[in-house]
């Protein structure tokens, strides 16, 4: 088992590093420069990849939360937590790159467009979830409470998206087309290749970070157990 997981880690690492360089090449040199937006459009490839991973990470939090409730298990609990932590990072990257993109192409840092607002609220729910996990108490209790909150949070996301879409289409005209892809009419095939490849790369990065994070968290628990054992031995 242990040897097997080492092979998977190495495999992920050795696909991750070259594909990152290939992705950088594809994005910055190979793919054509966008006619209207110019070089800032390059941020789009990483922005979409990070957004995709952020949403996927949240779905994975929900999945492991349900599994934790059905069968309280340290492994599921840790996986949900690590996925949330990585999700926060990628949501932050998505928000920041999105703001830079927005400033260069829409000339505003922020607009209350459904996708943006949903991502922001998603970020807040993630952070709240991490706060629940930082509560003190036995891990079984925290596992249950955080799993419950994770499920409630996942239920909330589609409602948020719908509410914000209604809110904006009712009061303001839709200024920026339906989505980023449709802007300027479709996407070049070369750009699509670069986009898909960078999404793939960032997903591999997520898988790699997830495995490493789970490993570190498990080590932390082992150390904690050993520590209490040693303390008991010294005291008794």
């Amino acid at each position, binding site marked *: 088992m242990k040897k097997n997981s080492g092979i998977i880690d190495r495999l992920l690492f050795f696909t991750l590093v070259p594909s990152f360089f290939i992705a950088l090449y594809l994005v910055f040199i190979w793919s054509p420069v966008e006619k209207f937006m110019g070089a800032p459009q390059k941020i789009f490839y990483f922005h979409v990849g990070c957004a995709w991973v952020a949403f996927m990470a949240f779905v994975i939090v929900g999945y492991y939360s349900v599994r934790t409730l059905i069968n309280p298990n340290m492994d599921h609990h840790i996986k949900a937590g690590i996925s949330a932590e990585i999700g926060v990072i990628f949501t932050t990257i998505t928000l920041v790159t999105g703001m830079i993109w927005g400033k260069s192409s829409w000339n505003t840092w922020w607009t209350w467009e459904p996708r943006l607002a949903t991502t922001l609220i998603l970020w807040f729910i993630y952070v709240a979830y991490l706060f629940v996990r930082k509560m003190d108490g036995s891990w079984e209790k925290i596992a*249950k409470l955080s799993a*419950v909150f994770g499920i409630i949070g996942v239920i909330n996301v589609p409602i948020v998206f719908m509410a914000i879409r209604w809110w904006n289409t009712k009061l303001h005209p839709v200024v920026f087309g339906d989505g980023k892809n449709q802007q300027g009419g479709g996407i070049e095939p070369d750009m699509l290749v670069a986009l898909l490849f960078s999404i793939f790369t960032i997903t591999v990065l997520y898988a790699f970070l997830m495995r490493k994070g789970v490993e570190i968290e498990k080590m932390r628990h082992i150390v904690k157990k050993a520590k209490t054992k040693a303390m008991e031995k010294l005291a008794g």
Partner: protein
Amino acid sequence: MNSIFKDAWTIASKDLSNEFKTKQTIGMMLIFSSLVILIFSFAFDPTNNMVKAVIPGLVWLITVFSGILGLNRSFLSEHENDALTGLRSAPIDPSSIYLGKVLANFLLVTSVQIISIPVLFILFDYRFIGKIGWFILVVLIGTLGFIIVGTFLAALAANAKNSEMLLPVLLLPLLSPLMIAAVQATRIILENGTITNAVSWLRLMSAYDLLFLAACFFLFEFIMEGS
């Protein structure tokens, strides 16, 4: 099923009679919502046209801010003398505890609203021209959704040491769709707009209420099991 409602009513009436004797939480909530109105009257000059734009938002701000105070108390007060253990070991369904608390909190917050919303209208010198029946309906449905999610998260947060701080952090992001719908519906009604627009928001709010009532009703057991 019938016994769940009976037990829920017992718990709600216990909370309410307790509150009726001390009147501490409700008094605090009233004073706090008046203070929020006062602070906002400094922030937005009540004499100009700004009032019309901010009133629908203010109705919900004072509800949520004062409601959070009450929600915090509703489970923390059970920690005194370890009453929570008593509730947990009582031969009742855990869901009836949840329903009872929802009922008690709902009545508490609506009774605060009965005073605080007219106070808001008077202090901002707002002339009410909308349909009062629809306005009350929107306020009730919105408050119910707020209490459904709020009571659940208050029970969750009560496990932490810093529960007063934790509750708003957990609650506000989850409330965001409800608040968008509630503020929009209130605005449409207060500006005497077409009711059909408000109805679609009302539908969203009712769907939110029902969905979260079902989810919280079933998940509440897990919160009570812990610790």
